[in-house]
Every structure is written in C-alpha cells, then in structure tokens.
C-alpha cells in the first residue's frame, strides 16, 4: 500500500484502516475529540504509515501531534 499523496488521501486511509467516521473537516479536530478515537490509534498509525511508505517516521513527533493535519505534515516532512 503506497503512502497517501494528499491530505484527503490521508484522511481516507485513516477512515478505512482505523475504522473511524471522519469528515474532511476533521483534519483540524483535536484527536481526542474524534468520534471513536483512542490513544492506541496513534501507534496503529505509525505502524500503518511506516509499512505503507517503507520510511521511518519520527515517533515522538507523531505522538505529540494534536490533530490529523499535523500527522500528515510529519508524513510529508519524512517523504
């Protein structure tokens, strides 16, 4: 599975792979306020994104992210 190449693609991936009900506006929503979010999701995302892109992500930065847009920014940075 290749890594997402846009924020919309990233949100789509999060929606299907983490089984979350997200709208496009949820990129800025505080993670804890996303419906169905739990803290394990950040760790699942790390595994998922790394196995998808074959790249290593800076885990502390992902863990410190406040919303999905910030996680996507980490992904872009690592690209």
């Amino acid at each position, binding site marked *: 599975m290749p890594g997402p190449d846009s924020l919309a693609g990233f949100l789509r991936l999060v929606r299907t*792979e*983490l*089984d979350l009900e997200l709208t496009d506006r949820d990129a800025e929503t505080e993670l804890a306020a996303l419906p*169905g979010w*739990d*803290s*394990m999701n*950040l*760790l699942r995302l*790390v*595994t998922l994104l790394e196995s998808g892109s074959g790249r290593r992500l800076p*885990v*502390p930065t992902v*863990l410190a992210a406040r919303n999905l847009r910030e996680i996507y920014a980490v992904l872009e940075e690592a690209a």
Partner: protein
Amino acid sequence: MTTTTPMERLRGLRAVGELAAAYHRVPALLAELLDEAAPADRDALLGRAGRLLAGLDLDEVLHHHPATQMVTVAITGQSTVAGLVDPLTAELARHGLLLRPLIGDHGGWLHDLTDPRGQLLPERPDLSLCLLDAETVFAELPSPWRVEELAEAAERVLERLARLAAEHERLAPGLLVLNTLPLLRRHAGQLVDHASRARLGAVWREFNARLLRLTERHRSLVVLDLDPLTAATGPVEDARLACYAQVRYTAPVLAGYAREVGHLTRSLTGLTRKCLVLDLDNTLWDGVLGEDGPDGIAAADTLRGEAFGAFQRTVRQLASQGVLLAVSSKNDRGPVLETLRSHPDLLLREPDFAEVRADWLPKDGHLADIARQLGIGTDSLVFADDSPGERAQVRFGLPEVAVLPLDGEPALHGERLLADGWFDVLRLTEEDRARPEQYRLEGERHRLREDSGSHADFLHQLGVSVRIGPPEPHEYPRLVQLTQRTNQFNLTGLRLQPGDPAAVAEDAGRLLLAIRAADRFGSNGLVGALLGRHTPDGLLLENAWLSCRVLTRGIEQAVLAALLAESRAAGRPAVHARFTPTAKNHRAELFYPELGFTETARTEDGVLFRHDLECPPEPPPHVHVTLDLGWPTDAWAR
C-alpha cells in the same frame, strides 16, 4: 453469490447497524477471512476485524443472541496492554465467544490482580491475563548493573509472581495467565564479555524455567511460553514504541498470544475439538491412489514422501494424546482399506482411525456421519484437506467445522495443523490418552447393539455397573475437564474451575460426587459428576454432568434413583434440583420431571425442581449401582 471480501461484509454490517444481530455469522466470516488472506496479512486483517468487533455493544449482541458465551477477561501487565484487545476480541469471536475486556492500570498488575476491592477482581474475570516482559526484571536493577544483581532481582520477581499466583487463586475463581520473558539483544548486548553474557543467559532461562514450573503447584495458573511463539513471529518489540509508549510487544506477538488465549478459552468453555478428519491423497500421502495406484503413492523414502511421513508423525503425536482420527476421502473404499493395512510407507494404519469414510459422496456428509458415529458434535471436528474445492464445500455445508487449509507444499502441512491449538486442553489426563482405545471399544459396543434384538436386550447384555463416590484428589483434573467438555448432559451449563474440587471437598456443606462406569467391554472411567449443597430441606443438586459417550444406557437414571433412595432411607425431607437451558442441553430438559421431580419455581436462571421422596423412581434393572457418599449418614440430616 456475493463477491465482496469478508472484511467488506463485516464493515457493511456495521455500517447498517446489523453487526450485533449478525454475530452468529462472524465465526464463519472470520474463518473465510483467514482462509483467503495471504499468510503475511492474516494477523493484521484479523486485528482490524477485531477492532470493528470491539466497538460492538455487548448487551446488544446478547440481546440478539442470548446463548452467546461472554468471557470476562482482565488484562493487565508491565506495559501498555490495550493493544491486546483487538486481536483478543477477534480470536474469541472466531470461536463464537464474546470478549468483555477489563483493562488494568498501566504497570499496576500486582495490585490489579490481588486487590479484592480493585477495579478488576470484583468483576469476577474468567481469565486474568498478566502480560509480563523483560522490564519486569530490568526495572529492578541499578545503573550500571551486574549479572549478580540481575540474579537477585530475578529471584525477587519470581517470589512476587509466586505470591501473585497464590493470592489470585485465593481471591479469584478464574485462571491466571502469565508468560515467560523474552530476553532481547538490547539487554544481552549491554555486557561486553561472553562469560557474563553466558551467565546472564543461564540466569534468565532459570528464571523462565522456574516461572513455568509454578504451574505444577498452582492448578489455576497458566504460563505461556513465548519462546516458540516469538521464534515464529519475528521481532519481540519496536524499540521506539517500547521507549515512547511503553508498548513492549509487536502486533504479531500480541496476535500469537491472543490466539493461544483464544484456544485456552475454548477449552475452558467446553469447545475443545475432539477429532481430526484427514483427507488422504496429497494430505496423508504423496500422490493420488485412484490414479497412481498403491505403488505410485509415497509417505517415505522420496523427497516429498518424507514430508508426508513427517506430517503423519505429527498426527500420530496428537492421537497419542487423545485426539481421535478419522478419514474422509474421495476414493473407492476397498483400495483405501487395503492401502491403510499394507502399504509399507504408512505410519498411520487402519486401527488408528476411529472412522474411515471413503466413497464419492460430498465430504460434508462424510463429516456429519463421522460425528454421528462417534457420538460427538460436528463442532468438535477439525478437517484437513489440500483441495480448496473440498474445503469450500465443507465450510459451506458445515460452517461449525474448523477447516485447515493445506496446500501443495507438504513440508508446511504440520505447521498448518498446529498453527491453531484446536486440541489444546489445560491438563492432559490418563483418560485423554486412553480415549482412542475407548472409542475402539465403543465400536465393539456398537456391533453388540446391532446384533441385539432390542435396546433393552442390548443394555442387558452390556452389563453396566456404576460406582458413585467422592472423587480422589488425583481425579480432580479429569473431573474438571469432564465438566468443561460436557455439553449435552450438563444440566445448568456450569463448568468447574481447576481449584473447585478441592474447595468443595473442604466444605462440609457441599458435595461433589464422581460417577465411574464399566461394562463387559471394560472400564469407561470417570464419566460424570454431581455437584450439590446440603440445605435444611434436603439435598440441592446444583448440577449433574454425564459424558455423551455413555448417554442412553440408563446410567443417569440409575444414579439419581440411587441418590433419591439413599436420601429417603436417611430420612431427609426432599431432594431439590436445578435445570438451566443452554444452547446444547435441551435433550436433558425432561430429565428431572421424568424421575418424578415437580417444578417449584421458574426464574431467569432456569427451573427449580423438588422430589418429596414419597415415591422414588424404580432404578433401571440392567444397571448395577454402588453408592458411597463418603460421609457419616447423619452428617447433614438437619
């Protein structure tokens, strides 16, 4: 037919809010998902299915499927354990079970599992999982450390774990599950000299060995050995997730751990599979008998033949521990029997199989026949076949059968057979080892029945004798296992836990009796049990179990008749009994009324009966009963 994947169907059901109502279809969907997925993707897919299922409302599932067995599992450990919930949810769902997880405090395992007023124990978990890792020992060490200090720390941790096992046994009814601690390169590599590293390795393994040996002292303790598991899964941890998020096991390790716990739970809830049904051509031997002839098949001496020979050895190993074997083959029967009798390559011979079905009929029919002949449910069968078509036919016709996907690579047959612990039990008993012999005797009984004029005639010739009395301590494991395996004649669905027989034996107000049977063909061993409680109005029978192997021989009626007669002779006012319907015990619904019990109450927990003993039932004339209650006759005639 639908072309969507099982995962898409699960998502579809969730999207329209029908997943809880469809929970009974989930095991078949997950079986299909595992069968279709590439081996490398199985765990990840199953974990994702688990996440979806973990979002279900338990009450809603139980509302739609009241007979679903919900399993309460306390999950705690040294590190973050939440990652275990998804795979465990999926593994239990594969078996039709419903997980109710209770998550402990991060790192607070000792408190979680020994505080009777904490968050976990008051919920009476069926299982307590305490996921330990190397940090359990290393957290005790100073910096820098030496091997001697590590040895002392390991000693302290072991003492703590031994106390935990004892306390948990005292406070909680369920099993405690610990695990061996994997030693990582980032630990061993901290020592630069090989002599110290060797000492570390020895100390570490002694710790794990002694941890495993704790199970010899504590009946309700299980220690999962992670070595074979991590040898198969690869990395134990991702150092970054261990460091930043205290996640010390990778997803594949947790998936394997969850799989073992799933099968452990199966065995505790009476779902252990009993019989392995094997295809022959390209499953048990190389080649196709009908096309290649007996000289053209091999299970030894050729490169591929050796692989089949190794698979036969693995199968025979399982059979030696009580797994019944049967054959389901699309072949002419004559050549199959001839081959099983005389082909020089075969390790497994005709007498090793409790049933051989070889003809051209559909295999789901074979399996149903085999189950009927052996007197077990089709949900006790595991079916191994290299042909995708035959597997699909059985999965469709009998979705409750566990189907093992073998393929064209015989070197992988053994691994596939053992990937799931379908035959796992808590403790193997002598009865288990003797089971294949028991079923051979069963065949002789069957022939006697066919030769007898009537069922009554057959029973008369069978010469059944029954001995009832308190179980000997060495019989406790067998008794517990019997209650866990017995479904049809289990009058309330209750199953005993490993510590129960000893606890009941110590309680003067309670009663546990073992039922042992024999006939002219030999001993049936321990075949049943009664659990009771003394009340001011006489004995209350809390449950009765009888193995399906010996049902319809009048044993259950003879046991109750003897017990009622004894109560009457001792001048007790009555005998009470309880029946609680379960998914499988409907055949026993009329057991008490037919013996003259009258219904006194009907509650959510089932029906209560009372027998006033004025007119005890006539014992079946063909059964000889010896009753030894093991207490002074006036001990509870209050």
